[in-house]
């Protein structure tokens, strides 16, 4: 017996809505749980004071600074490198064995567990290159970890720009580089930024890589060669070692708020950029 199409339509609609609603509910529950448990312990002092007594007292300023510096290093390296690779793959080479192999490699890298990148970073940056446990090693390892994501999203974004735009630019006498910089990149920018934002998010939340390559020093870092902990690592240590549940959740709250703020600013900026361009 067939079910009437109007019934299947209703069932489908409900199922799709339920799927969406449960995803959002899970998100809200996690965020709510952390914020309720953590925000009450967040004070101005918590944000601006050094870590005392391994995290039992004081604030988390060194962890905030460590996070920011490490993410800066990671994005500073992964974004230009990733976008350049994507431009090469999407605009400068022909589809063939070589690009397929490169793309396969990138996809494999994207699926490698972060702990492997931690080990890789430890061996290459910490030991062989002699950077030691440092913000630099951590940032470089994080860059390696997020590079595949940045490349993939940037390449997608470049490919979604209409071929027409390239033809018009070329027919008006643009060199290949001018085609890329003036007819393609401006329109791929929102997509590229999405990849970069994803990369920032993954760097901020990462613990395994950071513990292996940047250590977990509680002191305020004064140079890129200092060991430092990120907020995520700080939270992990506080929670796992049972140092201080209150401070752990307070740190987690700040971590979540940071990610929210980054996302909101990035998307607003992007929106402004696009609206400005369309209206220009």
């Amino acid at each position, binding site marked *: 017996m067939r079910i009437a199409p109007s019934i299947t339509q209703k069932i489908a609609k409900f199922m799709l809505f339920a799927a969406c609603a449960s995803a959002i509910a899970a998100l809200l529950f996690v965020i709510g749980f952390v914020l309720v448990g953590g925000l009450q312990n967040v004070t101005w002092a918590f944000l601006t004071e050094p870590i005392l007594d391994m995290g039992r007292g004081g604030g988390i300023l060194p962890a905030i600074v460590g996070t920011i510096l490490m993410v800066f290093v990671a994005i500073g390296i992964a974004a230009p490198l990733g976008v350049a690779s994507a431009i090469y793959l999407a605009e400068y080479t022909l589809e063939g064995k070589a690009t397929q192999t490169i793309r396969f490699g990138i996809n494999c890298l994207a699926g490698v567990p972060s702990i492997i990148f931690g080990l890789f970073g430890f061996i290459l940056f910490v030991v062989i290159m002699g950077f030691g446990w440092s913000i630099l090693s951590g940032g470089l390892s994080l860059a390696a970890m997020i590079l595949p994501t940045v490349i993939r999203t940037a390449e997608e974004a470049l490919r979604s720009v209409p071929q*027409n*735009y390239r*033809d018009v630019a*070329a027919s*008006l*006498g*643009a060199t290949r580089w001018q085609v890329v910089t003036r007819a393609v990149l401006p329109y791929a920018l929102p997509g590229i930024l999405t990849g970069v934002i994803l990369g920032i998010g993954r760097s901020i939340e990462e613990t395994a890589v950071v513990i292996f390559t940047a250590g977990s020093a509680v002191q305020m870092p004064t140079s890129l060669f200092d060991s430092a902990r990120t907020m995520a690592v700080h939270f992990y240590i506080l929670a796992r070692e049972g140092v201080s549940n209150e401070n752990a959740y307070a740190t987690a709250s700040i971590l979540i708020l940071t990610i929210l703020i980054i996302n909101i600013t990035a998307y607003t900026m992007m929106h402004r950029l696009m609206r400005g*361009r369309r209206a220009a």
Partner: protein
Amino acid sequence: MSADRVKIAIRDLNVGFGDVEALKGVSLDVRLNEVLSIIGPANSGKSSLLMAINRMIDRFPEASLSGSVKIDGVEVSGFRNVEDLRRRVGMVYAMPIPLPMSIRENILFGPGFMKRVKRSEGDSIVESTLKAAYLWDEVKDRLGSSAMALSGGQQQRLCIARTLATNPEIIMFDEPCSGLDPISTAKVEDAIKELKNDRTIIFVTNNTKQAARVGDRTAFLLMGELVEVDDTAKIFTNPSDNRTEEYVSGKFG
């Protein structure tokens, strides 16, 4: 007579895409400051011919080409910078392709590849090209607004103005009115007739009536072969080849 001077000389041109032959041994002269209409059904090689002239065909890795295309006696394959060639041979596509930027920015897009365009210089380029494309009166008060907001016909005339901005000696139109209504089509045709005063124009169309209206001479391409090229009046009243007769009278195509 200078009107008969050859601007583009095409000899034994063969173009293939992989195993598909798009053009087979085409030889054709385009005279200085004439409008040459090229007619023919779909897949007759019209667009391949245009792409061989401005070497946009270089962008297709699977394309192969033999024979000769000379502009003012210079082989196009001999241009060291293909960009110089493309600035001399402008191209207007079938569908209007405004870029998502302002009207002014669209027009100055091409000149900007050569140098930084000064404001006053940009103003004069924008005004002269828009006037030549019969669009100035309609947009002069909103040069800074988005080109995407224009109507289809206006967008296509903007594309003509944009092509004019690099001051090409030759302009190729690839079915420029295929997506336009009759009034917009008439305006585009007017612009083209005006342009031939000091430019050589190749006008590809699959609308035979339009070819008859616009072209000084008309070439008929069929399955990659040049069937016939002659004065437009002759092609449409007394063609030498049966296939031309059948095509222009609407028996096929």
